[in-house]
């Protein structure tokens, strides 16, 4: 049961990786990376049950947090080419451009 779900996840991850490499635009790649992260969270959880070590779920929880922040950070970086802008600076920059 767990092995079947893990195999399905691995196949899905291979397909998502294909899109991340082939994706014509930046956004395809970001979307694939985000989707890949979600699948990794599930895979870590399933592996924890498969090997009778449910402590792996702590790692999965952490990975879910990092994945979301990472996606938002990548998007912000490619929009402003800078990670350290405050909201006032962003507003003034949008007025100029």
């Amino acid at each position, binding site marked *: *049961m*767990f092995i*079947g*779900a893990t195999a*399905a*996840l691995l*196949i*899905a*991850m291979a*397909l*998502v990786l*294909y*899109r991340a490499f082939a994706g014509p*635009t930046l*956004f*395809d790649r*970001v*979307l*694939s990376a*985000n*989707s890949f992260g*979600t*699948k990794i*969270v*599930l895979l870590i*959880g*399933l592996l924890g*049950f498969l090997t009778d070590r*449910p402590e792996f*779920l*702590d790692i*999965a*929880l952490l990975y*879910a*947090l990092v*994945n*979301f922040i990472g*996606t*938002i950070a990548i*998007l912000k970086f*490619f*929009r402003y080419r800078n990670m350290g802008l405050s909201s006032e600076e962003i507003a003034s920059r949008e007025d100029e451009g």
Partner: protein
Amino acid sequence: MIELLVNLISGCLLATGSIFVLIGAFGLVRLPDFYTRLHAAGITDTLGAELILIGLMFQAGFSLVTVKLILISLFIFFTSPTATHAVANAARVMGLKPMLVPDKDLDNTEEA
């Protein structure tokens, strides 16, 4: 008897979740342009992930493991659509055009 029932339910949930995840990944590869791929990666993925996590909850029983699973599923339930929306909004603001929609049908407002 109860154990069999629990195993059956969690097996069904895991199988449905796996199928949804597979469909989502397949759609991500096969669909023609970015905005259609969003559907595969966003909607299907969230449902598949939730189903798999609920299936694992049935296996874990009442314990700390279930609490962690609930936390993960709550977090994915809120952040996965948010991330998808952020990607879609960034693509729209940065001027990526949907395929199959003629230019005159796009509203060219700044905050789409």
